[in-house]
């Protein structure tokens, strides 16, 4: 009995030695546990993105190191991203357009170019929806009526002004020739509350993520007038895009990944390789499918250009909405 114990301990030690020599043998980045920061509480979009990344990268053996998801909620991402800024290249964080708008709205000193762009991963689309018995059956009709009398149209949005739900309609309205600062928004606590308000007839329309209203539309409880995608969305092909409605706009609600400032080229290349492989896996496609997300992969270089372009767009939108500080 004792011998077996001794032998097994010996084997264990050898294994450990092998592992550690292996790790130091491959050298370089990453050489310790990795961290993905979800700058929000568990359960939301950022958290689910971070946990999906962790799961797919681990399950598909793309990354050998342990990956931990860390929740750092607060300040619309600010708390988590400040934390990221203080870490080394073994910590990454999930982001979205808030990394741009927080600063544009004067709510944060952090700017997007203080971080290292890694990838853009997935997108959701935005939807404009009205009650099932609404007198407006197209987005054009709705905008026409709003143009006539912008104050009378109560539009539900959540959880705060300046987010994509809000700004996507701001863009549509201003493309249509409406002054977006005149729109009458009621701000609810979250996407779910917005939908409840619409179903109960407490608002005339809502602007929200497509996933919040898609099933309700299919069940005939409300009508989606337009989606912000470039082509019709699977499952609801009957709903026109904004472009079909003559409003020249494609508005993604994207999520991506970024690292702390000053990552080296090798470190960035490491993630470009891993993430580009990950987005091709069946498991990742399943994740996208379950969440009603669409693949929106851009590598680090493309993401850098994309962020710049988006920042210009959001700057204009925030200004149009009358929220510029």
């Amino acid at each position, binding site marked *: 009995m004792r011998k077996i114990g001794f032998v097994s301990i010996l084997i264990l030690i050898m294994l450990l030695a092998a592992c550690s020599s292996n790790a130091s043998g491959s050298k370089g980045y990453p050489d310790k546990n990795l961290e993905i920061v979800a700058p929000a509480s568990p359960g939301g979009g950022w958290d689910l993105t971070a946990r999906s990344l962790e799961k797919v990268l681990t399950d598909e053996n793309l990354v050998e190191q342990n990956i931990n998801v860390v929740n750092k909620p607060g300040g619309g991402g600010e708390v988590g991203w400040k934390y990221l800024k203080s870490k080394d290249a073994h910590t990454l964080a999930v982001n979205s357009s808030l990394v741009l708008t927080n600063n544009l709205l004067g709510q944060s000193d952090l700017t997007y170019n203080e971080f290292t762009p890694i990838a853009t991963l997935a997108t959701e689309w935005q939807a404009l929806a009205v009650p099932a018995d609404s007198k407006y059956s197209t987005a054009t009709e709705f905008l026409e009526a709003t143009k006539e009398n912008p104050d009378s149209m109560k539009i539900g949005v959540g959880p705060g002004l300046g987010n994509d739900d809000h700004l996507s309609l701001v863009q549509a309205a201003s493309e249509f020739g409406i002054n977006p600062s005149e729109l009458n928004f009621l701000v609810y606590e979250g996407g*779910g509350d917005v*939908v409840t308000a619409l179903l109960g007839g407490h608002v005339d329309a809502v602007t929200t993520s497509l996933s919040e209203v898609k099933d309700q539309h299919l*069940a005939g409880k409300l009508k989606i007038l337009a989606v912000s995608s470039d082509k019709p969305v699977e499952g609801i092909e009957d709903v026109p895009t904004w472009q079909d409605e003559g409003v020249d706009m494609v508005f993604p609600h994207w999520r991506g990944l970024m690292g702390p400032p000053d990552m080296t080229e090798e470190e960035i290349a490491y993630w470009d390789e891993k993430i580009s492989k990950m987005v091709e896996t069946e498991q990742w496609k399943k994740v996208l*499918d379950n969440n009603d997300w669409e693949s929106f992969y851009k590598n680090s270089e493309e993401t850098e250009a994309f962020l710049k372009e988006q920042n210009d767009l959001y700057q204009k939108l925030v200004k149009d909405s009358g929220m510029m500080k």
Partner: protein
Amino acid sequence: MDGGSFINGLMIAIEPINILWIIVGGFLGTIVGMLPGLGPATAVAVLIPITFSMNPVSAIILMAAIYYGAMYGGSRSSILLNTPGDGSAIAATFDGYPMAKKGQAGEALAISAVASFIGGLIAVVGFIFLAEPLANFALEFGPAEYFLLMLLTLSAIVALSIGKMVKGFLAMMIGLTLSTVGIDTQTGVYRFTMGLPHLSEGIDFLIVIIGVYAIGEVLYNFLNIDQQKKDKKKVGKVWFTKDQWKRSKWPILRSGPLGFLIGVLPGAGGSIASMISYTSEKQISKRSEEFGDGAAEGLAAPESANNAASVGAMIPLLTMGIPGSGTTAVMLGALIMLGLRPGPLLFEQQPETAWALVNSMFLGNIALVIINILLVGLLVKILDTPAKVLYPIIVLLAFIGTYTLSYSTMDFFLLLIFGLFGLMMKIMDIPIAPLVLALIVGTDMEQNFRMAVLSSNGSLGIFFSSGVSIALVILTLLSLFYPLIIKLVKKKSQKNTDQPEQVYKSS
């Protein structure tokens, strides 16, 4: 309701693996509910990675069991230590703790478990027959109705503080003031955040609960530690008496449906349900003066209500895909990851899943009442634990619970500040519940008021524009003036003492 799917759902729910999850979830829920700060939302969130590998039906069964399990557990620490584990267990401190002080801890634990059980059963039956119409009823609630519901809750709290009305009012105002900290959603303006991004989402009411109750209680007992040793509490029975049952029977049966209805409203939840049920029972009771002194029915009623509310909260989640509470929001996220999308199509496309959950709640409540009654004997031993062991443990748990809320050490400072604050309030004999409840409902109350007025273009008529809102206004007025009316009536009946009974009956 569809009979075939119901039976199929039952068959799924009684698969051994699912029974196991029900028991595991219920037990886990009881434990996290008991610990200050660790609530069902945290427990479900921690389990998300584990549920990834589970069958979606088992996952939803497990998560739901944790949720209502926590409702059972929450009152345990309210009764034994005067520290509620969550907002919905605050009302359990009013009479639960005095009962424990009188040496009736065993009775209190037992009757609250049974009350939770009956409340849960009533709600599951309600769910089976009324899910659809109730979901539509919930939609009637616009900003004006929500504001009035919260106003009713606050007026109930003030009415509770009879005898120290001014102090109760003061505590409530402090709570409302604290609730204004954070981003104002209507305008996006940051209020009273002192430049700290951490405060942008407001002060988490759980930190305040843990601070003023748990830390405050420990500090307070620390000051009085010498007197305390002398009266060693003896723990009597582990089952309630016939008389206690007789007094609690009707309050339990009334509070179940009440809590269920309030639970269905997204955003209302267990705190409001238990509070309203407590005050309404107190007001219609013949022995209202015993409330707050360890009346069994004062504990049983809110316990029945909050458990019923947790079942009710599943209705908007399952029928509309709308989370009605923090915990159901986390559940929604987890279910979507599993490819199960609660919403209007769930009952059509996956009826077995929906009915499996409903049936599991039925079984879960049976499992929980057994678990909790078995635990009574063990839990009352906590009271025998020497203070030098117990209090450090409570403080430790308080810090752990606080950390899990947002993984930030800044919350520790808030916790300590509110701990000292709680101590002060206890010394000055200011009631704590109005402060905490005002903080819980304050933000929503303000935002709903402003949305209501915005949508009516400034007219206050919107608060009288629907049947529901008028009913709520009347209830609010009643809850404020009922004690006064009763006083007047009593005075009169004292003058002509021949018929006091009838006065009560008519009430």
